[in-house]
């Protein structure tokens, strides 16, 4: 070990001009299979005021539980590939229009955000169990010197009870990570930066 990781700094209030080019609010597409869902929510500060200058980034597996990343193939298929083979494999998958898995949406004046995606499949945990379907989330706002890391889980999902990460969270706070069904394919998931129902954030 040599160097130390560069220190984080706030995204500030003007990130729109730098980050808008790669805003992605629809992760679905013709070649993407799986159950389409729409997730909407709002970000609130400790006074219950909406946060109008935040950006939410998401990262998730496809409906089969594979990430568009070389290590996902290694892990899931248990195939030994060297880096070049893994990369060729990935390019092959991307070439077929497969699922990318990255989303980025800014919050609006009322703190709201929404994005359309597919429900991810289950991926392995380091202990060999399968995790419940989830979306990894980074929250960046003015006032946050580092991103906050959290997860979105799904309602009516029996595997939540045995999930590697949810089990690390005290039972009374797990609900902050589980989206609520609105109707049809729509789900609601809010981010409470502070307060009684403060969202669980992970040291990641």
């Amino acid at each position, binding site marked *: 070990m040599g160097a130390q990781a560069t220190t984080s700094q706030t995204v500030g209030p003007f990130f729109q001009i730098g980050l808008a080019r790669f805003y992605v609010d629809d992760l679905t597409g013709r070649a993407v299979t799986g159950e389409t869902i729409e997730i909407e929510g709002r970000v609130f500060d*400790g006074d219950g005021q909406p946060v109008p200058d935040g950006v939410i980034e998401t990262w998730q597996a496809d409906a089969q539980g594979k*990430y568009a990343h070389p290590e996902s193939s*290694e892990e899931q298929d248990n195939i030994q590939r060297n880096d070049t083979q893994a990369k060729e494999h990935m390019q092959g998958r991307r070439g077929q229009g497969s699922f990318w898995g990255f989303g980025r949406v800014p919050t609006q004046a009322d703190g709201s955000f929404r994005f359309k995606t597919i429900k991810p499949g289950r991926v392995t945990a380091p202990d060999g169990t399968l995790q419940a379907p989830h979306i990894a989330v980074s929250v960046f706002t003015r*006032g946050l010197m580092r991103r906050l890391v959290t997860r979105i889980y799904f309602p009516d999902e029996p595997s939540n009870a045995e999930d590697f990460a949810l089990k690390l969270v005290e039972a009374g706070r797990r609900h902050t990570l589980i989206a609520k069904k609105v109707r049809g394919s729509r789900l609601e998931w809010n981010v409470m930066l*502070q307060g009684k129902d403060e969202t669980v954030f992970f040291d990641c």
Partner: protein
Amino acid sequence: MAKFRGYRRADPGTQPDYLHPPYVSSIKRAPSKPLVYLPHTLSEVTGPSFDSSPIDVKASDLTRQHHGEPLGERIIVSGRVLDEDGRPAAHTLIEVWQANAAGRYRHNVDQHNAPLDPNFEGSGHTLTDEHGNFRFITIRPGAYPWRNHYNAWRPAHIHFSVFGPAFATRLITQMYFPGDALLPFDPIFNCTADEKARNRLISLFDWETTVCEQALGYKFDIILSGRDSTPWEK
């Protein structure tokens, strides 16, 4: 069971705390409960790749995005993106944004009464090369006032957003300039307890990348978390 390796966590003091009262906006936005330690899983050791995204070569030259040239001091900002073990982050996306030479952002929230520059957007992006190198041409941003406290001024800075190989390595930071008299007074720069870690956010003036009769060069290397040496084994 396959061996599974996560990414290393930051050394104490080298990353800012969420709550830093001198930075007033952190008071109502920093989480009040302790973070829950999450051993990295496949979800954290994978992350998005942008190497098949359309990258406009002009996007790394912020002085050539309009017909005319922006006002201000032209500079070249270059560096490498590496991990803590010195391994390059190849083909990773870097996004930058900044104020113009007068200290004004092209953003409707910015009410500072300095002029906008019709020839300057203040945003760019690029992919690192296979060795983790990147290079931007831009103009030196101006300092600007903000309302954190009476007579508060941000030192000149460029915002950097970097992905690296995994969700766990995602980083947004700010690059500062050597010798800026405002640095000791800036609550954002000073939010990191470790002085050496803080000072690594200050770029280095660099003759090697300075181009004769063209532009001053500044070096800014970005270090992302390294891979754990001890695998998680069942």
